[in-house]
């Protein structure tokens, strides 16, 4: 009820400002609410609370799943004021013209955004760019643009928020031997105890990592397969499925946590916070670095093209605040990585920074932002330092040109 009221007065206010030509808005005393569309994983209450305390602007989370975020961005671009989506979905969203290019001149820390996004390098070294690497889609040709720019411009499609490099999660206590390759996912040793995620565009990339690791085929671009390559990848999956390799497929975060925690599955595609969630239960679980590298993903903030006036200003305030360190430190402590490392470092304790970012042994117990024990003193983070982890990226979550065909073949795998 109160939300409705604020929205209504807000609309009235905005309309009034537009009518009088007072633009941008100066009615700072009036309450602004930003509707933030994204996945629940990124929508932390603590972040919204802290932002409100700092600026008085209210964040209203609209939580849906990854696919639904894209669907809404494409089909109902007026249902949100701030979009938090993954870079690979841009190939679907940007051609609709529903996104406004973000003016980097209004973003204080724009030039400090990690080079992983702008040039695709970590510590000067290029990382894998197969798939929808952010550097390919981060710049637009102008504020109103339906095309990606080839070289850096003033206009960004998404300002990066969080990113990570995914790999296999394992139960070291049940496997009892070292795991170092993606090929292990389809190793018959784990028959009936493996799982892969049932989100076609991501699942097929994990499968491609396995196919390459087994030496079956080397893809020119795992993130943009030809029909023959899709056929080959799905064929490998179907053979494994028919042989009873998979205990289950999973679609959401909690499913993957439950499969692992209950011991139904001992090796599976996994996301970093899911591994953390298993560990918090006191069950050993490793986010296993593998020699073939990681499949990376990245999310960022976008602005709908219709956003204007006070809400637009508030959205810029939020993005600037987000890159200013507090939120970055918060995300880093959850095991994600933040876009501007320098500001986040300033808001983290030295021992925390050493553990999370430098891959050093924890000098004291490492706790999550909610105070849960994540790692005991002396332990080191899976995957090592930022450079080791991000430098090990082999490919990025992607949207293929043959997406329709791929989804169709994926359904064949599920039906097999």
């Amino acid at each position: 009820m109160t939300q409705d009221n604020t929205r209504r007065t807000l609309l009235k206010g905005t309309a009034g400002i537009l009518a009088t030509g007072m633009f941008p808005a100066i009615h700072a005393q009036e309450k602004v609410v930003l509707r933030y569309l994204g996945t629940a994983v990124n929508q932390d209450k603590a972040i919204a609370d802290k932002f409100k305390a700092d600026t008085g602007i209210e964040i209203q989370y609209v939580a849906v799943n990854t696919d639904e975020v894209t669907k809404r961005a494409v089909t109902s671009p007026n249902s949100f004021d701030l979009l938090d989506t993954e870079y690979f979905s841009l190939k679907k969203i940007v051609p609709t013209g529903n996104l406004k290019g973000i003016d980097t001149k209004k973003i204080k820390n724009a030039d400090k955004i990690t080079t992983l996004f702008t040039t695709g390098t970590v510590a000067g070294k290029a990382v894998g760019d197969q798939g929808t690497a952010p550097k390919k889609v981060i710049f637009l040709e102008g504020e109103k643009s339906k095309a990606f720019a080839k070289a850096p411009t003033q206009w960004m499609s998404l300002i990066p928020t969080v990113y990570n490099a995914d790999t296999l999660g394992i139960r070291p206590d049940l496997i009892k031997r070292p795991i170092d390759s993606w090929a292990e996912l389809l190793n018959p040793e784990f028959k009936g105890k493996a799982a892969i995620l049932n989100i076609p565009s991501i699942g097929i990339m994990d499968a491609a990592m396995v196919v390459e690791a087994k030496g079956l085929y080397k893809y020119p671009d795992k993130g943009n397969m030809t029909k023959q390559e899709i056929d080959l990848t799905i064929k490998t999956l179907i053979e494994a499925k028919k042989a009873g390799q998979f205990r289950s497929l999973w679609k959401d975060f909690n499913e993957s946590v439950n499969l692992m925690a209950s011991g139904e599955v001992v090796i599976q595609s996994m996301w970093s916070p899911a591994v953390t969630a298993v560990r918090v239960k006191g069950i050993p679980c490793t986010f296993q670095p593998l020699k073939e590298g990681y499949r990376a993903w990245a999310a960022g903030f976008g602005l709908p093209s219709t956003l204007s006036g006070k809400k637009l200003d508030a959205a810029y305030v939020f993005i600037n605040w987000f890159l200013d360190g507090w939120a970055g430190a918060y995300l880093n402590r959850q095991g994600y990585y933040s876009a501007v490392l320098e500001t986040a470092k300033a808001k983290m304790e030295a021992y925390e920074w050493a553990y999370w970012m430098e891959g050093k042994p924890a000098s004291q117990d490492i706790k999550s932002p909610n105070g849960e024990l994540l790692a005991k003193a002396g332990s080191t983070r899976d995957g090592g330092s930022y450079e080791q982890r991000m430098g090990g990226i082999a490919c990025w979550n992607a949207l293929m040109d043959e997406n329709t065909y791929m989804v169709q073949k994926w359904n064949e795998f599920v039906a097999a």
Partner: protein
Amino acid sequence: MSRSHEAGPPAWLQALPFAAVFVFFFVAPLVLVGAVSLWPTSDYELKPGFVFDNYATIFAGCANLAEPCVTLKTYWSTLRFSLAAWAVTLVLGFAIAYFLAFHVRSTAAQTLLFVVCTIPFWTSNVIRMVSWLPLLGRNGLVNQALLGLGLADQPVEWLLFSNFSVVLTFVHLYTMFMLVPIFNSMMRIDRSLLEAAEDAGASGWQTLWNVIVPLSRTGILIGSIFVITIVMGDFVTVGVMGGQQIASVGKIIQVQTSYLQFPLAAANAVVLLAVVLSIIVALNRMVDLRREL
């Protein structure tokens, strides 16, 4: 025709409100789905058109029966679940309804037992489904019991994420939909018919088969329609209990909509609708529902 009838507003006006609701919420969306199913497939735009590509995609390679296509396999698997769930819920629902209607004498006890049957329905569908997971899992209660009693050497794997667990959950979720209409039909059977059958020397089984079953057929039919149509369109139960490894028509549609492939999804929905409608028509052939009700 009596006077009072002539005095009211004309018949078409009386039918208008419901007809409008029907057109707005049922006919219009259905026509839209039919229309979109003929549009060309495109990732981020809906371009109107009139092509049969989507249907061609769905049925591509389906002529070869030696190696059935995804569509046929999926429908076959969904149909099998429908049949299995239907058969089990029918037997269970009928047996429970029979017990309630003919063995429980007092109305108070009948009402009480009927309410007991509905208690599980006070929680959500999803919770009732998910609660099977800790029971049937590899380290679940059932397996622990089997191992503890020495009935099995190692955990039984087919209990969970299998056809068995899917059918079990369907039965658990939907027996009520079978029970209620059958119970309702049974309660309307004239008790003197049963006495007459007994007087004429019919055995218990003969009475059941020749009197009660025929007179409960409307309830059986309604229950069957409920169960079959729900199972045909389900994708959540098959997904969760089948470990996402079993295909269902609903799941295919859901995956396609989540990838914005609305035309393909619409075409699939039209095919599913056609299949379900033919099942209902066939069932109606067996019992003339409108005359019997």
